[in-house]
């Protein structure tokens, strides 16, 4: 432990004490427990939390979610809210994969109903849903169409036969980030996105067929129509090359802006501009375009997955009860209302590897979930499980309405590849757990091996005990597609 610097507040909350000598404007808050905190403190993560705490206009604290780990610039699992007048916006606080996120689609099938068809279903999805570089895309958009996607988000897919209207209410912001303005997106970004709408990408992105293996909260599960042994589909993807290019473009712009506005940076990856400056507003609007692209992307992907179900079972998606439970983005900056020291404030909340976790009754939650809080979807590794949780009122005061976003890596990609053979892993997951894994790259698969990740059960337990979100259901993978 770093002497005197870290204070244990309770069993699930640690504080990095405010130290003005280090340039901190606010303290750091880490949600963890005695078992995991040592690992957090051993990494350089603490410095990253402190660096974020030093940015101008940060409000209350620099937060670290239970899955915190060392990244570049902002830590992964970092949450920071900035005053709109005094504070900044930072592309590094969102990351390259803008609006990377997860969605879950429910079906009325029980595992036993489709057990024998999973292999073929997964193969069909693998063949027909584009994955990324080297595979053929299904859409190629004109300039005009790109403009519309960036402006309308998931709504565009509904008007263009690759999305479902009834899904929109179950996507954050109803599927459209209203402040988006394509005028601030570069030609290079448009070109990278043109053929990538409706493609999965690689790395930790996936399509999984899952089975509900445990229910923790019957009421919330009932409202989401989730039951034991039910088959669900989870999709994890983001804004693809378009978002990556928006991030690259604005990191460069912000290098100059930081100098222009005299912002002292401890790490160039933290480059930022005042939220209300020309540079800040342009980034916010360009980022909004990438958010729209990501939401449209996940809607396209799930539309095509649903089509494979329809072909396989010769039934309409409605007859199979296929509906979107919810779609969340876990790399994003958004203007939100929060109450700070009994005062209502408009803040720009950066979540980099953190999920919004609004509690019951919040105005941004769809009507049917108002009573239980926003669904919080936490994907785990491909061999163990994922979770559906709900947001809490406590999260509003504890973490700016935020919770964790995944398991967090344990092994680097290089050491995972050294220790694990992708083809062996694929066989082992099938032999020992009955999980069907399809992937283009076996070395990519090794990087994503379950052993390379922390046990997500530990992470969600901290999130629940710290009051950031509440467990609803635990899901086990049946079939996994990796890009």
């Amino acid at each position, binding site marked *: 432990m770093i002497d005197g610097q870290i204070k244990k507040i309770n069993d699930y909350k640690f504080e990095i004490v405010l130290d003005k000598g280090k340039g901190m404007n606010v303290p750091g808050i880490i949600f963890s427990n005695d078992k995991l905190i040592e690992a957090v403190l051993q990494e350089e993560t603490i410095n990253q939390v402190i660096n974020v705490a030093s940015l101008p206009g940060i409000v209350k604290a620099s937060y670290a979610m239970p899955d915190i780990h*060392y990244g*570049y610039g902002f830590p992964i699992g970092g949450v920071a809210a900035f005053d709109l007048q005094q504070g900044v916006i930072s592309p590094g606080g969102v990351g*390259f*994969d803008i609006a990377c996120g997860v969605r879950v689609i429910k079906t009325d099938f029980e595992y036993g109903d489709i057990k024998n068809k999973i292999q073929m279903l997964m193969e069909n999805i693998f063949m027909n849903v584009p994955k990324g570089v080297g*595979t053929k895309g299904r859409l190629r958009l004109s300039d005009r169409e790109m403009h519309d996607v960036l402006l309308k988000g998931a709504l565009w897919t509904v008007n263009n036969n690759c999305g479902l209207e009834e899904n929109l209410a179950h996507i954050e912001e109803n599927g459209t980030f209203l402040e988006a303005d394509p005028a601030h997106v570069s030609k290079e970004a448009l070109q990278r996105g043109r053929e990538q709408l409706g493609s999965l990408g690689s790395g930790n992105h996936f399509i999984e067929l899952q089975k509900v293996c445990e229910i923790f909260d019957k009421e919330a599960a009932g409202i989401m129509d989730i039951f034991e042994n039910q088959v669900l589909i989870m999709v994890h993807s983001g804004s693809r090359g378009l978002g*990556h290019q928006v991030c690259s473009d604005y990191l460069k712009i912000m*290098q100059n802006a930081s100098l222009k506005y005299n912002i002292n940076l401890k790490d160039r990856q933290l480059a930022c501009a005042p939220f209300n400056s020309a540079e800040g507003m342009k980034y916010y609007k360009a980022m909004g375009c990438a958010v729209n692209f990501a939401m449209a992307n996940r809607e396209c992907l799930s539309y095509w997955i649903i089509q494979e179900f329809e072909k396989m079972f010769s039934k309409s998606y409605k007859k199979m009860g296929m509906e979107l439970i919810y779609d969340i983005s876990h790399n994003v900056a958004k203007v939100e209302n929060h109450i700070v020291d009994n005062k209502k404030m408009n803040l720009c909340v950066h979540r980099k590897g953190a999920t919004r976790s609004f509690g019951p009754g919040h105005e941004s939650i769809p009507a049917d979930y108002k009573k239980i809080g926003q669904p919080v979807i936490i994907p785990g590794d491909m061999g163990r499980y994922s979770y559906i949780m709900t947001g809490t009122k406590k999260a509003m005061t504890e973490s700016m309405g935020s919770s964790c976003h995944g398991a967090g890596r*344990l092994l*680097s990609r290089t050491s995972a590849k050294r220790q694990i053979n992708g083809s062996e892993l694929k066989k082992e997951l099938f032999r020992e757990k009955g999980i069907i894994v399809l992937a283009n790259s076996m070395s990519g698969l090794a990087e994503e091996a379950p052993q390379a990740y922390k046990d997500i059960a530990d992470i969600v337990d901290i999130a629940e005990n710290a009051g950031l979100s509440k467990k609803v259901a635990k899901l086990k993978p049946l079939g996994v597609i990796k890009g």
Partner: protein
Amino acid sequence: MTLSKEFEVIDYTSDVKIRAYGRNIEELFENSARGMFSLIGKNKKFRLNNIDKIFIIKIKGASYEELLVSWLEKLLFYHETKKILFFDFKIISFFPDKNEADINPEYSLEAKASGERIDLKKHEILTHIKGPTYHNLNIIQDIKNEIFEVNIIFDV
């Protein structure tokens, strides 16, 4: 003098890090690109490449570091939009050279990158790189050995 290695891949928990070397700044840029593409993809079987896609890249920047990031970004851009796996990199010209760097704030380079159109029968795509980061990005020169070196962290 020969370089003992062009680049190495370094353990980094969340993302991917490479350390590239060069006897001069041109070679450092070439080896950084080599390192990045070693992460992106490879030929499935060892055989002579049929390198027929050639791109001339011209970029500007406010520092060597910014130029390095822009160079790698440009290669990623062509990799993704033109579906090219690059194998060979040659810096044609570099302004200013290191002796005038202090007096000239505008940096630029012209380079040639050659590769093949991606064909999954022939190539294996290993990692999708989202972008190079500025995190702890400093080009340093080992005065004794006259070797340039840089650590680059990529978001993957």
